[in-house]
């Protein structure tokens, strides 16, 4: 027979846990709303940036900038967006799994990583993969500055020739329940899709100071904008995943409390019954 006091103690402890998961869910929901707004707000900029970049890159030859030049991929760099905290469902594990798959697909090539978030750092610390840079406490950074920093590391590696391709792995935000781990190609910069092949802009453009310099700068800013947009998506995904996970945890806690309360009541009933039997049989004994 479980002790009444023990059951009561367990109920209280589960109730406390439930309070925490509920609070975390509310915090995640508030952060998610902000993060989603940020994704939306930055979209016009990145769309325009893409248009301007495509406009100029379509008119430029692939040799015009090292960032457009396609090379046999001997060495690749993978940028990984993970989180600093757990308790957010599959958010971290799916990104890490996708990264590992990408690494396996590129076996035999030189691979180096740029890691964001404690989870990615801890995961790859035990595995022998070279890291170019690790950035922790992502949420405390200005995300655009962070994107700029990562872009410059990637661009440097690409221009120096220590990387022939740069990929980005992150969680794309679909909705609160669904976040899709994605691999995006950052460098070389993709300038045209198949249907745009053969399209030519007719307008004559002027560039100041020079077409090469402007192209260089636009490509850099385009890469930053891609990294920035993905960071915002990742942030929304993390909060969405946490909200869903904490909602499930709160529901589980409720079920557990219900079960325990049932046990508690049964145990209490049993105790009362036992006491009654004792009293009755005691009285019987006296009468007899």
């Amino acid at each position, binding site marked *: 027979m479980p002790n009444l006091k023990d059951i009561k103690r367990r109920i209280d402890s589960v109730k406390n846990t439930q309070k925490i998961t509920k609070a975390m869910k509310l915090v995640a929901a508030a952060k998610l709303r902000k993060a989603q707004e940020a994704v939306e*707000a*930055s979209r*016009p900029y990145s769309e325009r940036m893409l248009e301007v970049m495509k406009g100029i890159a379509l008119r430029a030859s692939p040799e015009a900038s090292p960032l457009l030049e396609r090379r046999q991929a001997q060495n690749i760099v993978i940028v990984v967006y993970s989180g600093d905290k757990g308790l957010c469902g599959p958010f971290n594990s799916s990104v890490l799994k996708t990264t590992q798959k990408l690494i396996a697909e590129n076996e035999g090539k030189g691979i180096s990583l740029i890691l964001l978030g404690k989870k990615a750092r801890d995961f790859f610390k035990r595995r022998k993969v070279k890291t170019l840079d690790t950035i922790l406490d992502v949420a405390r950074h200005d995300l655009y500055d962070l994107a700029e920093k990562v872009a410059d590391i990637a661009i440097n590696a690409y221009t120096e020739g220590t990387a022939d391709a740069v990929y980005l792995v992150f969680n794309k935000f679909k909705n609160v329940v669904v976040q899709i781990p994605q691999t995006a190609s950052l460098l070389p910069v993709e300038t045209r899709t198949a249907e745009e092949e053969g399209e030519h802009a007719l307008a*004559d*453009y002027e560039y100041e*100071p020079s077409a090469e310099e402007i192209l260089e700068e636009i490509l850099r800013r385009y890469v930053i*904008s891609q990294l920035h947009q993905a960071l915002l998506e990742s942030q929304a995904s993390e909060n969405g995943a946490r909200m869903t996970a904490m909602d499930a945890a709160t529901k589980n806690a409720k079920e557990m409390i219900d079960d325990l309360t049932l046990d508690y009541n049964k145990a209490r009933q049993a105790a009362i019954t036992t006491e009654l039997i004792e009293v009755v049989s005691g009285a019987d004994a006296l009468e007899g």
Partner: protein
Amino acid sequence: MSESNDSQESLQLEVLTPGKMVARVSVPMVTLPGAEGYFGVLPGHMHLITRLKPGIVTYEDGGMPRRMAISTALVEVAPEKVIVLARSAELGGDIDLDRARASLEEAKARIASLPEGDEGHKEAEAESQRALARVQAVEELGE
């Protein structure tokens, strides 16, 4: 450039930052802080892509003069539109003058304390240009 653009009377001006769309208006003319100095853009301007310095973008929105402080930016000019892609942009009315003045002073102090050619010196110069643009945007609007 095609002839049909000559009849046009206004330009679509868009000012975008990574954080938000700051302006999207139809304007008769816009002045931009080019690398070689301020220049005006009228409808029918030739295609141009260039860099902008931290400075002030001036235009008229429904007859009201507007001044906007921008940081380093890229601009694409076409006969019918002007797209400014800036790291930051603030309309004159939105700028906190005291804060802008304070950061201008701070940047000036840093310029003075650091040797020329130093990485921080360059940054401080850019910062002071940005702060100056913000201060000017407010002051000139007030006059």
